[in-house]
């Protein structure tokens, strides 16, 4: 199994409060991703990173920001949480093996976030 951890694993917070989710990898992979999973939608990409301090937006990035100051850590921040951000959040990592293209993605265990 890929060495990916997410913290916290569960969190309940109130509307309007800031929340930061952490993804930590021990694989030294270049690419990292944040997805959210909601019933009826599968997984949707929020933001991704292709290197330290290199990030870009995904399909559902509004209301989220990310940072990557080290290869092993990718942080997802909800500046002011809303009830629509109640979801399960997954981090994923992948490597690029000489082709310059990201390879298969491996997922962390997920974080269940509830915004009341």
């Amino acid at each position: 199994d890929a060495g990916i951890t997410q913290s916290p694993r569960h969190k309940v917070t109130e509307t309007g409060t800031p929340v930061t989710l952490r993804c930590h990898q021990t694989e030294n992979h270049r690419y990292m991703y944040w997805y959210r999973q909601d019933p009826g939608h599968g997984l949707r990409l929020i933001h991704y990173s292709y290197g330290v301090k290199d990030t870009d937006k995904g399909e559902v990035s509004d209301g989220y920001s990310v940072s990557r100051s080290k290869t092993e850590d990718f942080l997802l921040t909800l500046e002011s949480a809303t009830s629509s951000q109640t979801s399960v959040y997954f981090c994923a990592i992948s490597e690029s093996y000489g082709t310059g293209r990201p390879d298969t993605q491996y997922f962390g265990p997920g974080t269940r976030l509830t915004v009341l």
Partner: protein
Amino acid sequence: AQTVTQSQPEMSVQEAETVTLSCTYDTSESDYYLFWYKQPPSRQMILVIRQEAYKQQNATENRFSVNFQKAAKSFSLKISDSQLGDAAMYFCAYRSARRGGSQGNLIFGKGTKLSVKP
């Protein structure tokens, strides 16, 4: 934009029997990758199998195999000798092979919930 469609929200199979999960996708690209991920009740996303579009041979992993029909844009998953532990949500996913831009982001279908009856 690419899309992935899983037309079967739920499927059921008898233990030891074979089941096929359907997936279709839409893309204008010729070079891409396709994946099946399994999500058991533990919520962990587990890679089941992967297929490169340039390969004509269908991928297999033990009891799991795919039927990849590039012209039809179809990518079905066959599970043989189904086991109770195969019960899970199964997601089909697409990834472009081109460099830059989306950097290999996955586009997922909405999933098929598979139940295995003893």
